């Protein structure tokens, strides 16, 4: 029981099925299962609507999905432009997957995979490498002019180039740390409040327990906002390398 009192306890992962291939640890733990559930929920939601056939008068689920897709489409158009529509699939999938994983984590007993820096870091690095590839394949050597902001005097270029390189490299870090920190912090606060509520006597214990309910509501908002910010910034970064200033 002693180790269960740590508010960070629920972030620990223990393998459920041990799989070791060569030097690789491919064990299946709670996080892997939560990720599979997340994928299954996204796939299931869209298949449910797609299989049933879209009707002219949309039902509740269909109109909800259509609204969110329209919303993402507007985001892609705004930040990348019309030629950004080929990245719409990627951005949409990213949004729904992160949103589902964030929301699934709020169900007691499940696991928030976005509270692992490995997961958010992988997303961010993939997006970073993708923007580099898009930029270089679109503009060739001219792509590196992104490191020199327009209207900079020649004498300032040796100063501006390192600054621009640093701000380029900071993007994946801030992208991944933001999502990871928000999720971890929220769940830690919930765990601390819950621990307080359980260890306090009944006459005062209802207070922290009540707060967990309120914070849980706030966490739902944060789950949506963080998924939104993550996808918006992905669009901004892709738009930056396509437009080059």
């Amino acid at each position, binding site marked *: 029981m002693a180790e269960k009192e740590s508010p960070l306890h629920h972030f620990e992962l223990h393998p459920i099925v041990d799989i070791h291939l060569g030097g690789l640890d491919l064990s299946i733990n709670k996080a892997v299962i939560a990720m599979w559930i997340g994928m299954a929920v996204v796939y299931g939601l869209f298949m449910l609507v797609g299989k049933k056939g879209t009707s002219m008068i949309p039902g509740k689920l269909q109109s909800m999905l259509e*609204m*969110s897709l329209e*919303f993402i489409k507007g985001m892609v158009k705004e930040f990348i432009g019309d030629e950004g529509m080929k990245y719409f699939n990627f951005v949409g999938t990213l949004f729904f997957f992160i949103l589902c994983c964030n929301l699934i984590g709020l169900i007691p007993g499940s696991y928030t995979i976005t509270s692992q820096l490995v997961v958010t870091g992988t997303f961010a690095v993939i997006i970073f490498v993708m923007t580099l590839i898009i930029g270089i394949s679109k503009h060739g050597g001219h792509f590196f002019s992104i490191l020199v902001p327009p209207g900079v005097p020649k004498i300032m270029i040796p100063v501006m180039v*390192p*600054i*621009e390189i*640093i*701000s380029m*490299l*900071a*993007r994946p*870090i*801030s992208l991944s*740390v*933001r999502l990871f*920190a*928000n999720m971890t912090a929220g769940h830690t606060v919930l765990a601390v409040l819950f621990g307080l509520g359980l260890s306090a006597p009944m006459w005062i214990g209802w207070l922290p327990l009540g707060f967990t309910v309120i914070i849980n509501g706030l966490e739902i*908002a944060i789950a*949506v*906002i*963080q998924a*939104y*910010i993550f996808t918006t*910034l992905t669009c901004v970064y892709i738009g930056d390398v396509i437009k080059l200033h």
Partner: protein
Amino acid sequence: MGQDNGFHQGMGFAARLGTEMVAATLIGAGMGYALDWLFGTRPWFLALGVIFGGAAGCLGVYRTAMQTINENNENDNNETDSNP
């Protein structure tokens, strides 16, 4: 999500600016530290890296803020234009 109110947007905005600044400073410091380790010139590149990182962070925050202000101004103008 379509009806994100000002509070939510502001909160997301604040979180975005904060992490951007910290990440840029850390990257600058990390690059400086790596260069020091490479050339054995501790602590000069580290100091320079922190300064450059901080500058990059400020620049990023400034750009994001200006962009948002411009967008808000455009929205306000559109709203007043559409009113007869």
